[in-house]
């Protein structure tokens, strides 16, 4: 009986999960879910809670009738299960309730305070998960039953980093061209070495300096998680790095667009600058849109520059492994660094990146699972009603202000009922795709110019163009699902990581990481500003 009592948390949590799954399944929570925009996850909520609930109760039963032993099953499954379920439940709470409520609250407060707290403070599941973990450990503490499960957090975070590789493909690098890759690579390495030098100057722990250099050089959370084991960084050092990067990004989000406009940067120059200087990808996108919401080139260039940095991750891991080994007085040969010290999970990241580049998950030219399909396809056609609207508008000459290329693209949409290349070129895929993409760009330009009030057209025609564009923008289900898994792994892992951060440990680290991060960030932003302004006139995206 005493064994059963020890497993009460498992039975309680398993029971709550099952009851929640049943309630969601009846649809009685649907109005609430619709109000916070999570109704699309209803099936997922039922399935996940049902599986986790059953798993919890079964583990509870096995633990109750079987004495704890020192087997793999006990160590990796039966003992951590209670903690794993607690972390999962918290991750569900963050993703399905806390994050949507923060977004809604932020939108409600926007008219009063003038800005969206959610966007400005980047209060997404990453930050919220970490905060929830820190809050629990510093108030009620980690419950005894969950202690073993919390120790799976780092392992799960590593799974998230491996899956990150699936989102990118070599085609992204090829789009930038050699010159821009040198530019991005130069700044990544430069920042890493600057932070290492600052760490030495301010006499900061090697582990803190190492993890901060990767975070500031590459990009936020993923780089921090990836480098932490190599430099043996502690949880609070990882949290400080993530905090420093996000705080620096908040300042950049406001400063970058203002400076860009003041000096008259062109859209591609600003995109290159924001993509190099700002670390967090969401903040890069926000700054690019704040600079220019009309010309999509700004956002595209900024995102590609930002994404390219992630692909330097394996190199940075190698550099920091060598640095950390030498700093801690180890004699390192090439074999030691490349084979013994190189983390296997980073090889996993590379493996998924290669799989993604070969087109296993999506056409190789994808970007975060999104790709463009301008081939003939019934599903990409506009509706008959939309075609009639377009037909009438073209006959009446109701689209005014468009140039010859834009008009030709619109007329071709009318002719072919979809965005595509020329029918005669259908057997030559390269030419067919090129023409189709040019037409797509021309239609995107029409929408952007209409928004800027340079092209006149009715709301209905705008709707037709928007729909036609939406039809050729495809998303790979495989990458969307893998990204979802990655987000869950990160949410789970970051809550667990947060739970390992005590007030005492944070006080011990002090404010130095922030000082070092800001010095390195400002230096990089200023240097990249001049480099971009002088050398980047136009970024040609192939």
């Amino acid at each position, binding site marked *: 009986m005493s064994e059963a009592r020890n497993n009460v948390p498992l039975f309680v949590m398993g029971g709550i999960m099952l009851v929640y799954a049943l309630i969601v399944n009846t649809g009685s929570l649907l109005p609430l879910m619709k109000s916070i925009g999570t109704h699309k996850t209803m099936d997922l909520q039922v399935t996940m809670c049902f599986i986790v609930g059953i798993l919890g109760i079964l583990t509870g039963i096995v633990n109750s009738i079987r004495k704890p032993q020192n087997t793999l099953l006990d160590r990796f499954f039966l003992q951590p299960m209670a903690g794993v379920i607690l972390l999962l439940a918290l991750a569900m709470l963050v993703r399905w309730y806390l994050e949507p409520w923060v977004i809604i609250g932020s939108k409600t407060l926007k008219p009063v305070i003038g800005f969206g707290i959610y966007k400005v403070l980047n209060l997404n599941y990453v930050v919220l998960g970490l905060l929830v973990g820190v809050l629990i450990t510093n108030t009620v503490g980690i419950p005894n039953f969950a202690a073993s499960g919390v120790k799976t957090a780092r*392992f799960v975070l590593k799974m998230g980093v491996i899956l990150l590789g699936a989102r990118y493909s070599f085609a992204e690098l090829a789009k930038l061209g050699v010159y821009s890759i040198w530019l991005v690579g130069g700044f990544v390495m430069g920042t890493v070495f600057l932070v290492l030098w600052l760490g030495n100057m301010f006499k900061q722990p090697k582990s803190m300096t190492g993890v901060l250099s990767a975070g500031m050089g590459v990009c936020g959370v993923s780089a921090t998680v990836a480098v932490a084991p190599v430099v*043996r960084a502690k949880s609070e050092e990882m949290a400080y790095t993530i905090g420093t990067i996000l705080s620096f990004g908040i300042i950049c989000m406001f400063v970058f667009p203002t400076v860009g406009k003041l000096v008259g940067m062109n859209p591609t120059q600003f995109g290159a600058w924001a993509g190099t200087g700002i670390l967090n990808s969401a903040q890069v996108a926000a700054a690019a849109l704040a600079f220019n919401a009309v010309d999509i080139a700004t956002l595209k260039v900024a995102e590609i520059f930002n994404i390219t940095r992630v692909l330097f991750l394996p190199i940075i891991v190698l550099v920091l492994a060598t640095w950390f080994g030498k700093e801690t007085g180890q004699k390192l040969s090439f074999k030691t660094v490349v084979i013994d010290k190189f983390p296997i999970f980073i090889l996993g990241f590379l493996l998924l990146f290669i799989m993604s580049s070969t087109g296993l998950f999506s056409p190789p030219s994808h970007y975060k699972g999104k790709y463009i399909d301008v081939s003939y396809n019934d599903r990409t056609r506009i509706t008959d009603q939309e075609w009639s609207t377009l037909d009438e508008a073209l006959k009446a000459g109701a689209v005014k202000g468009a140039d010859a290329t834009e008009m030709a693209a619109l007329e071709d949409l009318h002719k072919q009922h979809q965005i595509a290349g020329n029918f005669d070129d259908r057997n030559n895929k390269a030419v067919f795709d090129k023409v189709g993409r040019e037409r797509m760009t021309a239609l995107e330009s029409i929408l952007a110019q209409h928004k800027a009030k340079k092209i006149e057209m009715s709301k209905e025609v705008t709707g037709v163009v928007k729909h036609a564009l939406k039809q050729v923008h495809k998303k790979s*289900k495989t990458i969307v699902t893998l990204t979802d898994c990655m987000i869950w792994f990160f949410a789970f892992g970051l809550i667990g990581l947060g739970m390992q951060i005590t007030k005492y440990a944070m006080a011990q680290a002090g404010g130095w990481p922030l000082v070092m991060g800001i010095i390195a960030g400002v230096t990089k932003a200023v240097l990249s500003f001049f480099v971009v302004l002088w050398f980047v006139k136009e970024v040609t995206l192939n």
Partner: protein
Amino acid sequence: MSNKIDVDTGSDGKGSHQFSAQADTQEMEERALSVFSSERNEDITALVFTLITTFVVLLFTKWMV
């Protein structure tokens, strides 16, 4: 001679733990924050689990659709 030492942390901990005989305090602290006895085991398990996840996702979103 084995270069690993076993430390028993009891049934309410995680059972037995294996450390390198040369492990320093920092490594011991690091391992105490994980259910795995070494970084290598943790990485390989993470890689295997991720590959299984990827295979299952591919099966249901690409190959069986």
